[in-house]
Protein backbone atom coordinates (compact mmCIF):
# COMPACT_ATOMS: atom_id res chain seq x y z
CA UNK A 1 0.00 0.00 0.00
CA UNK A 2 3.06 2.30 0.36
CA UNK A 3 3.31 2.93 -3.39
CA UNK A 4 -0.27 4.06 -3.76
CA UNK A 5 -1.29 7.62 -4.50
CA UNK A 6 -3.01 9.38 -1.61
CA UNK A 7 -5.63 12.10 -1.47
CA UNK A 8 -5.17 14.78 1.21
CA UNK A 9 -7.78 12.89 3.27
CA UNK A 10 -5.97 9.54 3.55
CA UNK A 11 -5.03 10.16 7.17
CA UNK A 12 -8.59 11.21 8.03
CA UNK A 13 -9.97 7.95 6.61
CA UNK A 14 -7.62 5.91 8.77
CA UNK A 15 -8.55 8.00 11.84
CA UNK A 16 -12.23 7.38 11.06
CA UNK A 17 -11.59 3.63 11.12
CA UNK A 18 -11.96 3.03 7.38
CA UNK A 19 -10.87 -0.16 5.71
CA UNK A 20 -8.41 1.07 3.10
CA UNK A 21 -7.88 -0.59 -0.28
CA UNK A 22 -6.00 -0.12 -3.54
CA UNK A 23 -8.52 1.42 -5.92
CA UNK A 24 -7.06 2.20 -9.36
CA UNK A 25 -3.68 2.85 -7.76
CA UNK A 26 -5.12 5.05 -4.99
CA UNK A 27 -5.22 4.39 -1.24
CA UNK A 28 -8.96 4.76 -0.68
CA UNK A 29 -11.63 3.89 1.92
CA UNK A 30 -13.89 1.01 0.84
CA UNK A 31 -16.00 1.26 4.01
CA UNK A 32 -16.08 2.88 7.44
CA UNK A 33 -18.91 1.17 9.37
CA UNK A 34 -20.27 -1.21 6.74
CA UNK A 35 -21.53 -0.95 3.18
CA UNK A 36 -25.22 -1.51 3.96
CA UNK A 37 -25.30 1.00 6.82
CA UNK A 38 -23.45 3.61 4.74
CA UNK A 39 -25.76 2.96 1.77
CA UNK A 40 -28.84 3.55 3.96
CA UNK A 41 -27.30 6.71 5.41
CA UNK A 42 -27.09 8.20 1.91
CA UNK A 43 -30.65 7.13 1.03
CA UNK A 44 -32.16 8.53 4.24
CA UNK A 45 -29.86 11.36 5.46
CA UNK A 46 -26.58 12.32 3.78
CA UNK A 47 -23.12 10.97 3.12
CA UNK A 48 -19.75 12.57 2.46
CA UNK A 49 -17.40 11.09 -0.15
CA UNK A 50 -13.72 11.75 -0.80
CA UNK A 51 -13.40 11.76 -4.58
CA UNK A 52 -9.86 13.07 -4.64
CA UNK A 53 -8.85 10.18 -6.88
CA UNK A 54 -10.99 11.47 -9.76
CA UNK A 55 -9.21 13.40 -12.51
CA UNK A 56 -10.02 16.94 -13.69
CA UNK A 57 -9.05 18.67 -16.91
CA UNK A 58 -9.70 22.20 -18.07
CA UNK A 59 -10.24 22.91 -21.74
CA UNK A 60 -9.79 26.53 -22.78
CA UNK A 61 -8.88 28.77 -25.69
CA UNK A 62 -10.94 30.15 -28.59
CA UNK A 63 -11.57 26.66 -30.03
CA UNK A 64 -12.40 24.84 -26.80
CA UNK A 65 -15.97 24.21 -27.98
CA UNK A 66 -15.14 22.73 -31.43
CA UNK A 67 -12.41 20.61 -29.84
CA UNK A 68 -14.80 19.15 -27.26
CA UNK A 69 -17.43 18.66 -29.94
CA UNK A 70 -14.87 16.57 -31.82
CA UNK A 71 -13.64 14.41 -28.91
CA UNK A 72 -16.86 13.90 -26.92
CA UNK A 73 -20.22 12.32 -27.76
CA UNK A 74 -22.69 14.84 -26.31
CA UNK A 75 -23.55 18.26 -27.73
CA UNK A 76 -21.28 20.76 -26.00
CA UNK A 77 -22.90 23.64 -27.89
CA UNK A 78 -26.10 23.02 -25.96
CA UNK A 79 -24.41 23.91 -22.65
CA UNK A 80 -25.26 27.25 -21.08
CA UNK A 81 -22.66 28.76 -18.72
CA UNK A 82 -22.72 26.73 -15.48
CA UNK A 83 -24.45 23.78 -17.12
CA UNK A 84 -23.10 20.22 -17.10
CA UNK A 85 -23.64 17.12 -19.20
CA UNK A 86 -22.82 13.42 -19.04
CA UNK A 87 -20.69 12.49 -22.05
CA UNK A 88 -18.08 10.07 -23.33
CA UNK A 89 -14.77 9.93 -25.14
CA UNK A 90 -14.88 7.27 -27.88
CA UNK A 91 -12.41 5.34 -29.99
CA UNK A 92 -13.05 5.51 -33.76
CA UNK A 93 -14.68 2.05 -33.61
CA UNK A 94 -17.27 3.28 -31.10
CA UNK A 95 -15.71 1.68 -28.02
CA UNK A 96 -15.53 3.91 -24.95
CA UNK A 97 -12.27 5.54 -23.79
CA UNK A 98 -14.03 6.95 -20.69
CA UNK A 99 -17.30 8.38 -19.48
CA UNK A 100 -17.02 11.95 -18.26
CA UNK A 101 -18.88 14.99 -17.01
CA UNK A 102 -18.35 18.18 -19.01
CA UNK A 103 -19.09 21.44 -17.14
CA UNK A 104 -19.23 24.72 -18.99
CA UNK A 105 -17.57 27.13 -16.58
CA UNK A 106 -20.10 29.47 -14.89
CA UNK A 107 -18.17 32.44 -16.34
CA UNK A 108 -18.94 31.06 -19.80
CA UNK A 109 -15.22 30.90 -20.47
CA UNK A 110 -13.86 27.38 -20.99
CA UNK A 111 -14.83 23.93 -19.77
CA UNK A 112 -14.07 21.71 -16.79
CA UNK A 113 -14.05 17.97 -17.47
CA UNK A 114 -14.15 15.28 -14.79
CA UNK A 115 -12.70 11.87 -15.67
CA UNK A 116 -12.40 8.51 -13.94
CA UNK A 117 -9.46 7.82 -11.63
CA UNK A 118 -8.65 4.53 -13.33
CA UNK A 119 -8.55 6.25 -16.73
CA UNK A 120 -6.80 9.52 -15.92
CA UNK A 121 -3.46 8.74 -17.59
CA UNK A 122 -5.11 7.06 -20.57
CA UNK A 123 -7.53 9.97 -21.07
CA UNK A 124 -4.80 12.60 -20.83
CA UNK A 125 -2.71 10.74 -23.41
CA UNK A 126 -5.78 10.34 -25.64
CA UNK A 127 -6.67 14.04 -25.39
CA UNK A 128 -3.06 15.06 -26.09
CA UNK A 129 -3.05 12.81 -29.17
CA UNK A 130 -6.29 14.32 -30.51
CA UNK A 131 -5.05 17.80 -29.66
CA UNK A 132 -1.90 17.15 -31.75
CA UNK A 133 -4.00 15.87 -34.67
CA UNK A 134 -6.14 18.98 -34.64
CA UNK A 135 -3.43 21.61 -35.08
CA UNK A 136 -6.10 23.70 -36.78
CA UNK A 137 -7.74 24.33 -33.39
CA UNK A 138 -6.51 26.88 -30.86
CA UNK A 139 -7.19 25.00 -27.63
CA UNK A 140 -5.44 24.38 -24.32
CA UNK A 141 -5.96 21.13 -22.42
CA UNK A 142 -4.63 21.26 -18.85
CA UNK A 143 -4.56 18.48 -16.27
CA UNK A 144 -5.58 20.14 -12.99
CA UNK A 145 -6.10 16.91 -11.01
CA UNK A 146 -3.13 17.56 -8.71
CA UNK A 147 -4.43 20.91 -7.58
CA UNK A 148 -8.14 20.10 -7.42
CA UNK A 149 -9.83 18.62 -4.36
CA UNK A 150 -13.16 16.85 -4.92
CA UNK A 151 -15.80 15.99 -2.33
CA UNK A 152 -19.37 14.84 -2.80
CA UNK A 153 -22.24 15.27 -0.37
CA UNK A 154 -25.17 13.08 -1.36
CA UNK A 155 -28.55 12.31 0.14
CA UNK A 156 -31.82 14.09 0.99
CA UNK A 157 -30.20 16.21 3.72
CA UNK A 158 -27.32 17.40 1.49
CA UNK A 159 -28.70 20.82 0.69
CA UNK A 160 -29.61 21.79 4.26
CA UNK A 161 -26.13 20.73 5.42
CA UNK A 162 -24.12 22.43 2.68
CA UNK A 163 -26.27 25.57 2.90
CA UNK A 164 -24.86 26.20 6.40
CA UNK A 165 -21.41 26.79 4.88
CA UNK A 166 -22.22 28.87 1.79
CA UNK A 167 -23.92 32.23 1.14
CA UNK A 168 -25.07 31.08 -2.33
CA UNK A 169 -28.72 29.97 -2.32
CA UNK A 170 -28.30 26.31 -3.28
CA UNK A 171 -31.93 26.14 -4.37
CA UNK A 172 -30.85 28.22 -7.40
CA UNK A 173 -28.47 25.48 -8.59
CA UNK A 174 -30.56 23.09 -10.71
CA UNK A 175 -29.74 19.42 -11.37
CA UNK A 176 -26.69 19.13 -13.64
CA UNK A 177 -25.80 22.77 -13.07
CA UNK A 178 -22.87 24.33 -11.19
CA UNK A 179 -22.03 27.68 -9.64
CA UNK A 180 -18.97 29.37 -8.22
CA UNK A 181 -19.59 29.56 -4.49
CA UNK A 182 -17.66 30.24 -1.32
CA UNK A 183 -17.87 27.22 0.95
CA UNK A 184 -16.63 28.07 4.45
CA UNK A 185 -14.82 31.04 2.90
CA UNK A 186 -13.11 29.00 0.17
CA UNK A 187 -13.93 29.63 -3.48
CA UNK A 188 -15.27 26.37 -4.97
CA UNK A 189 -17.22 25.08 -7.92
CA UNK A 190 -20.40 23.58 -6.48
CA UNK A 191 -22.33 21.27 -8.82
CA UNK A 192 -25.66 19.54 -8.33
CA UNK A 193 -24.41 16.23 -9.69
CA UNK A 194 -23.59 12.83 -8.25
CA UNK A 195 -23.36 9.08 -8.60
CA UNK A 196 -25.87 7.81 -6.06
CA UNK A 197 -29.39 8.44 -7.38
CA UNK A 198 -29.97 10.97 -4.58
CA UNK A 199 -30.03 14.74 -4.57
CA UNK A 200 -26.63 16.12 -3.72
CA UNK A 201 -23.59 18.12 -4.69
CA UNK A 202 -20.07 17.63 -5.93
CA UNK A 203 -17.65 20.26 -4.67
CA UNK A 204 -14.37 21.14 -6.40
CA UNK A 205 -11.95 23.16 -4.29
CA UNK A 206 -8.28 24.14 -4.24
CA UNK A 207 -6.62 20.94 -3.03
CA UNK A 208 -5.04 22.54 0.04
CA UNK A 209 -8.51 23.26 1.49
CA UNK A 210 -9.87 19.71 1.09
CA UNK A 211 -9.22 18.50 4.63
CA UNK A 212 -10.70 21.57 6.28
CA UNK A 213 -13.84 21.43 4.12
CA UNK A 214 -14.23 17.73 4.92
CA UNK A 215 -13.92 18.40 8.64
CA UNK A 216 -16.30 21.36 8.56
CA UNK A 217 -18.93 19.47 6.55
CA UNK A 218 -18.83 16.52 8.97
CA UNK A 219 -19.08 18.96 11.87
CA UNK A 220 -22.07 20.97 10.64
CA UNK A 221 -23.70 17.89 9.10
CA UNK A 222 -23.51 15.67 12.18
CA UNK A 223 -26.88 16.76 13.66
CA UNK A 224 -28.57 15.85 10.34
CA UNK A 225 -26.85 12.45 10.32
CA UNK A 226 -24.04 13.13 7.83
CA UNK A 227 -21.48 10.29 7.78
CA UNK A 228 -18.42 9.51 5.66
CA UNK A 229 -19.14 6.95 2.92
CA UNK A 230 -16.68 4.54 1.28
CA UNK A 231 -16.34 3.25 -2.25
CA UNK A 232 -18.26 0.05 -1.40
CA UNK A 233 -21.52 1.92 -0.82
CA UNK A 234 -20.73 4.26 -3.73
CA UNK A 235 -20.88 1.18 -5.95
CA UNK A 236 -24.14 -0.24 -4.55
CA UNK A 237 -25.75 3.22 -4.68
CA UNK A 238 -24.81 3.83 -8.32
CA UNK A 239 -25.91 0.32 -9.31
CA UNK A 240 -29.39 0.75 -7.79
CA UNK A 241 -29.61 4.02 -9.75
CA UNK A 242 -28.37 2.20 -12.89
CA UNK A 243 -25.44 4.49 -13.39
CA UNK A 244 -22.72 2.85 -15.48
CA UNK A 245 -19.27 2.04 -14.13
CA UNK A 246 -16.43 2.23 -16.64
CA UNK A 247 -14.87 -1.22 -17.04
CA UNK A 248 -18.20 -2.91 -16.18
CA UNK A 249 -21.09 -1.47 -18.18
CA UNK A 250 -18.95 0.41 -20.70
CA UNK A 251 -15.45 -0.22 -22.01
CA UNK A 252 -13.39 -0.25 -25.19
CA UNK A 253 -15.43 -3.36 -26.14
CA UNK A 254 -18.90 -2.06 -25.24
CA UNK A 255 -20.49 0.79 -27.16
CA UNK A 256 -22.66 3.52 -25.61
CA UNK A 257 -25.65 2.35 -27.66
CA UNK A 258 -25.35 -1.19 -26.31
CA UNK A 259 -25.10 0.25 -22.79
CA UNK A 260 -28.29 2.27 -23.25
CA UNK A 261 -26.43 5.59 -23.17
CA UNK A 262 -27.80 6.93 -26.45
CA UNK A 263 -29.11 9.98 -24.55
CA UNK A 264 -25.47 11.15 -24.25
CA UNK A 265 -24.65 10.62 -27.93
CA UNK A 266 -25.58 13.51 -30.23
CA UNK A 267 -25.25 11.84 -33.63
CA UNK A 268 -26.67 14.94 -35.35
CA UNK A 269 -24.23 17.50 -33.89
CA UNK A 270 -21.60 17.07 -36.62
CA UNK A 271 -18.45 14.99 -36.82
CA UNK A 272 -16.89 13.47 -33.70
CA UNK A 273 -14.58 10.56 -33.01
CA UNK A 274 -16.62 7.35 -33.10
CA UNK A 275 -19.63 8.93 -34.76
CA UNK A 276 -19.52 6.87 -37.98
CA UNK A 277 -19.29 3.61 -36.06
CA UNK A 278 -22.24 4.53 -33.85
CA UNK A 279 -24.32 5.79 -36.77
CA UNK A 280 -23.76 2.44 -38.49
CA UNK A 281 -24.65 0.55 -35.28
CA UNK A 282 -27.80 2.57 -34.93
CA UNK A 283 -28.84 1.91 -38.54
CA UNK A 284 -28.12 -1.82 -38.31
CA UNK A 285 -29.37 -2.20 -34.73
CA UNK A 286 -27.13 -3.13 -31.81
CA UNK A 287 -26.32 -6.81 -31.29
CA UNK A 288 -26.36 -6.61 -27.48
CA UNK A 289 -28.34 -4.73 -24.86
CA UNK A 290 -27.67 -3.87 -21.26
CA UNK A 291 -30.58 -5.09 -19.15
CA UNK A 292 -31.50 -5.02 -15.48
CA UNK A 293 -32.50 -8.23 -13.72
CA UNK A 294 -33.32 -9.60 -10.31
CA UNK A 295 -32.93 -13.16 -9.09
CA UNK A 296 -36.21 -14.92 -8.43
CA UNK A 297 -34.75 -17.86 -6.53
CA UNK A 298 -31.98 -18.43 -3.99
CA UNK A 299 -28.56 -19.37 -5.26
CA UNK A 300 -26.15 -16.58 -4.43
CA UNK A 301 -25.32 -13.05 -5.42
CA UNK A 302 -24.81 -12.12 -9.09
CA UNK A 303 -21.31 -10.77 -9.74
CA UNK A 304 -19.37 -9.16 -12.58
CA UNK A 305 -18.46 -11.60 -15.42
CA UNK A 306 -20.92 -14.33 -14.38
CA UNK A 307 -22.34 -16.05 -17.46
CA UNK A 308 -25.95 -15.47 -18.51
CA UNK A 309 -27.95 -18.20 -20.27
CA UNK A 310 -31.39 -18.73 -21.79
CA UNK A 311 -32.51 -22.34 -22.32
CA UNK A 312 -28.94 -23.51 -21.69
CA UNK A 313 -27.47 -21.22 -24.36
CA UNK A 314 -24.95 -18.55 -23.37
CA UNK A 315 -26.39 -15.13 -24.23
CA UNK A 316 -24.14 -12.73 -22.33
CA UNK A 317 -22.43 -11.72 -19.12
CA UNK A 318 -23.30 -9.95 -15.89
CA UNK A 319 -21.60 -6.53 -15.83
CA UNK A 320 -22.43 -5.63 -12.20
CA UNK A 321 -24.42 -7.29 -9.43
CA UNK A 322 -25.07 -7.08 -5.73
CA UNK A 323 -27.59 -7.61 -2.98
CA UNK A 324 -29.51 -4.34 -3.16
CA UNK A 325 -29.47 -2.78 0.31
CA UNK A 326 -32.63 -0.77 -0.49
CA UNK A 327 -34.67 -3.58 -2.07
CA UNK A 328 -33.25 -6.56 -0.20
CA UNK A 329 -33.08 -8.42 -3.52
CA UNK A 330 -30.23 -9.70 -5.63
CA UNK A 331 -30.01 -7.40 -8.62
CA UNK A 332 -27.68 -6.85 -11.52
CA UNK A 333 -27.04 -5.50 -14.99
CA UNK A 334 -26.16 -7.85 -17.84
CA UNK A 335 -25.06 -7.32 -21.42
CA UNK A 336 -27.10 -9.85 -23.43
CA UNK A 337 -27.96 -10.69 -27.03
CA UNK A 338 -30.68 -8.41 -28.29
CA UNK A 339 -33.30 -11.10 -28.96
CA UNK A 340 -33.43 -12.24 -25.32
CA UNK A 341 -33.69 -8.69 -23.91
CA UNK A 342 -37.01 -7.42 -22.58
CA UNK A 343 -38.63 -6.50 -19.28
CA UNK A 344 -40.37 -9.57 -17.86
CA UNK A 345 -38.32 -12.04 -19.90
CA UNK A 346 -36.31 -14.71 -18.06
CA UNK A 347 -32.55 -15.15 -17.76
CA UNK A 348 -30.46 -17.75 -15.95
CA UNK A 349 -27.46 -16.41 -14.08
CA UNK A 350 -24.76 -19.06 -13.72
CA UNK A 351 -23.54 -18.94 -10.13
CA UNK A 352 -20.84 -21.48 -9.21
CA UNK A 353 -21.79 -23.61 -12.20
CA UNK A 354 -25.51 -23.66 -11.44
CA UNK A 355 -28.24 -21.71 -13.28
CA UNK A 356 -30.18 -19.42 -10.96
CA UNK A 357 -33.45 -18.04 -12.31
CA UNK A 358 -33.75 -14.29 -12.88
CA UNK A 359 -36.28 -11.99 -14.51
CA UNK A 360 -35.54 -8.78 -16.36
CA UNK A 361 -36.88 -5.70 -14.60
CA UNK A 362 -37.23 -2.01 -15.32
CA UNK A 363 -34.32 0.19 -14.36
CA UNK A 364 -33.32 2.16 -12.42
CA UNK A 365 -33.87 -0.36 -9.64
CA UNK A 366 -34.27 2.58 -7.28
CA UNK A 367 -35.63 6.03 -8.02
CA UNK A 368 -35.97 8.68 -5.34
CA UNK A 369 -39.48 9.99 -4.80
CA UNK A 370 -38.92 13.52 -3.47
CA UNK A 371 -38.25 15.21 -6.83
Amino acid sequence: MENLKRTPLAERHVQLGARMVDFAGWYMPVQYRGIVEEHRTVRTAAGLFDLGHMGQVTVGGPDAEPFLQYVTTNDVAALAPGEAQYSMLLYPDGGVVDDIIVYRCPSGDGYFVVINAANTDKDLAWLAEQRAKRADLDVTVTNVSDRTGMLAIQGPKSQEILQQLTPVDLQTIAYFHAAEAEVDGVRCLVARTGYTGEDGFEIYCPIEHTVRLWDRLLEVGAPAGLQPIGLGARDTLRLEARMPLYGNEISAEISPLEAGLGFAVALDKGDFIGRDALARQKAEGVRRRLVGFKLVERGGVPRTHYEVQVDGRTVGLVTSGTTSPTLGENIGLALVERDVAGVGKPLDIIIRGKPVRAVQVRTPFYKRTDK
Partner: protein
Amino acid sequence: MAQVAQGLRYTKTHEWVKVEGDVATVGVSDFAQSELGDITYLELPEPGTRVTAGEPMGVIESVKAASDIYAPVSGEVIEANSEVVDSPETVNASPYERAWLVKVRMSDPSEVDALMDAEAYEAFVNEEGGA
Protein backbone atom coordinates in the same frame (compact mmCIF):
# COMPACT_ATOMS: atom_id res chain seq x y z
CA MET B 1 -10.47 -5.42 16.74
CA ALA B 2 -11.88 -8.84 15.89
CA GLN B 3 -12.96 -10.91 18.86
CA VAL B 4 -11.61 -14.45 19.31
CA ALA B 5 -13.84 -16.68 21.44
CA GLN B 6 -12.02 -18.81 24.02
CA GLY B 7 -12.40 -22.60 24.16
CA LEU B 8 -12.89 -23.03 20.41
CA ARG B 9 -10.54 -24.38 17.74
CA TYR B 10 -9.84 -22.46 14.55
CA THR B 11 -8.74 -23.02 10.95
CA LYS B 12 -6.47 -20.85 8.84
CA THR B 13 -9.53 -20.24 6.63
CA HIS B 14 -11.30 -18.65 9.65
CA GLU B 15 -13.81 -21.33 10.60
CA TRP B 16 -14.29 -22.20 14.27
CA VAL B 17 -15.11 -25.58 15.81
CA LYS B 18 -16.70 -26.39 19.13
CA VAL B 19 -16.27 -30.04 20.13
CA GLU B 20 -18.81 -31.98 22.22
CA GLY B 21 -18.06 -35.72 22.20
CA ASP B 22 -17.76 -36.73 18.55
CA VAL B 23 -19.89 -33.81 17.32
CA ALA B 24 -18.24 -30.64 16.02
CA THR B 25 -20.28 -27.45 15.75
CA VAL B 26 -18.84 -25.23 13.02
CA GLY B 27 -19.08 -21.50 12.32
CA VAL B 28 -17.00 -18.66 10.95
CA SER B 29 -14.95 -16.33 13.13
CA ASP B 30 -15.60 -12.73 14.03
CA PHE B 31 -12.56 -11.84 11.92
CA ALA B 32 -14.11 -13.61 8.91
CA GLN B 33 -17.46 -11.83 9.21
CA SER B 34 -15.76 -8.49 9.71
CA GLU B 35 -13.56 -9.00 6.63
CA LEU B 36 -16.55 -10.03 4.50
CA GLY B 37 -18.82 -7.23 5.70
CA ASP B 38 -22.61 -7.38 5.33
CA ILE B 39 -23.42 -11.05 4.77
CA THR B 40 -26.38 -11.64 2.47
CA TYR B 41 -26.25 -15.31 1.42
CA LEU B 42 -25.26 -18.69 2.84
CA GLU B 43 -25.17 -22.09 1.21
CA LEU B 44 -24.71 -24.94 3.68
CA PRO B 45 -24.45 -28.71 3.18
CA GLU B 46 -27.64 -30.70 3.79
CA PRO B 47 -27.79 -33.14 6.70
CA GLY B 48 -26.38 -36.44 5.49
CA THR B 49 -23.66 -34.82 3.39
CA ARG B 50 -20.15 -36.19 3.96
CA VAL B 51 -17.53 -33.46 4.29
CA THR B 52 -13.74 -33.68 4.22
CA ALA B 53 -11.38 -31.58 6.33
CA GLY B 54 -9.91 -28.75 4.25
CA GLU B 55 -12.44 -29.11 1.41
CA PRO B 56 -15.15 -26.54 0.59
CA MET B 57 -18.51 -27.46 2.14
CA GLY B 58 -20.48 -24.25 1.64
CA VAL B 59 -20.51 -20.68 0.45
CA ILE B 60 -20.79 -17.37 2.24
CA GLU B 61 -21.47 -14.15 0.33
CA SER B 62 -21.50 -10.53 1.37
CA VAL B 63 -22.42 -7.39 -0.54
CA LYS B 64 -18.71 -7.22 -1.39
CA ALA B 65 -17.55 -10.77 -2.13
CA ALA B 66 -18.18 -14.51 -2.27
CA SER B 67 -16.10 -16.95 -0.26
CA ASP B 68 -15.99 -20.71 0.36
CA ILE B 69 -16.62 -22.23 3.75
CA TYR B 70 -14.18 -25.09 4.37
CA ALA B 71 -14.88 -28.15 6.49
CA PRO B 72 -12.54 -27.98 9.50
CA VAL B 73 -13.04 -31.71 10.17
CA SER B 74 -14.22 -34.78 8.25
CA GLY B 75 -17.49 -36.55 8.88
CA GLU B 76 -21.23 -36.42 8.26
CA VAL B 77 -23.34 -33.30 8.56
CA ILE B 78 -26.10 -34.05 11.07
CA GLU B 79 -27.68 -30.60 11.27
CA ALA B 80 -27.56 -27.30 9.38
CA ASN B 81 -28.75 -24.03 10.89
CA SER B 82 -31.74 -23.07 8.73
CA GLU B 83 -32.38 -19.90 10.73
CA VAL B 84 -29.04 -18.44 9.73
CA VAL B 85 -29.65 -19.41 6.09
CA ASP B 86 -32.90 -17.41 6.25
CA SER B 87 -31.21 -14.48 8.07
CA PRO B 88 -27.57 -14.44 6.94
CA GLU B 89 -26.94 -11.12 8.71
CA THR B 90 -26.94 -13.15 11.94
CA VAL B 91 -23.37 -14.11 11.03
CA ASN B 92 -22.38 -10.45 11.41
CA ALA B 93 -24.29 -10.01 14.64
CA SER B 94 -23.41 -13.23 16.47
CA PRO B 95 -20.70 -15.29 14.75
CA TYR B 96 -19.94 -17.53 17.74
CA GLU B 97 -23.42 -18.04 19.18
CA ARG B 98 -26.58 -17.76 17.09
CA ALA B 99 -24.76 -18.11 13.76
CA TRP B 100 -23.37 -21.62 14.19
CA LEU B 101 -23.61 -23.13 10.70
CA VAL B 102 -23.49 -26.93 10.82
CA LYS B 103 -22.95 -29.84 13.22
CA VAL B 104 -20.70 -32.59 11.96
CA ARG B 105 -20.40 -36.11 13.41
CA MET B 106 -16.64 -36.54 13.14
CA SER B 107 -15.17 -39.62 11.52
CA ASP B 108 -11.74 -38.84 13.01
CA PRO B 109 -11.93 -36.63 16.13
CA SER B 110 -8.12 -36.47 16.25
CA GLU B 111 -8.29 -34.02 13.30
CA VAL B 112 -9.24 -31.37 15.87
CA ASP B 113 -5.72 -31.56 17.31
CA ALA B 114 -4.36 -30.05 14.10
CA LEU B 115 -6.51 -26.91 14.52
CA MET B 116 -5.36 -23.74 16.27
CA ASP B 117 -6.49 -22.88 19.79
CA ALA B 118 -7.78 -19.36 20.55
CA GLU B 119 -4.35 -18.00 21.43
CA ALA B 120 -2.69 -19.34 18.28
CA TYR B 121 -5.58 -18.11 16.13
CA GLU B 122 -5.41 -14.63 17.62
CA ALA B 123 -1.70 -14.48 16.78
CA PHE B 124 -2.46 -15.78 13.27
CA VAL B 125 -5.13 -13.13 12.68
CA ASN B 126 -2.92 -10.33 13.98
CA GLU B 127 -0.19 -11.40 11.62
CA GLU B 128 -2.43 -11.91 8.60
CA GLY B 129 -4.95 -9.12 8.82
CA GLY B 130 -3.45 -6.58 11.15
CA ALA B 131 -6.83 -6.84 12.86
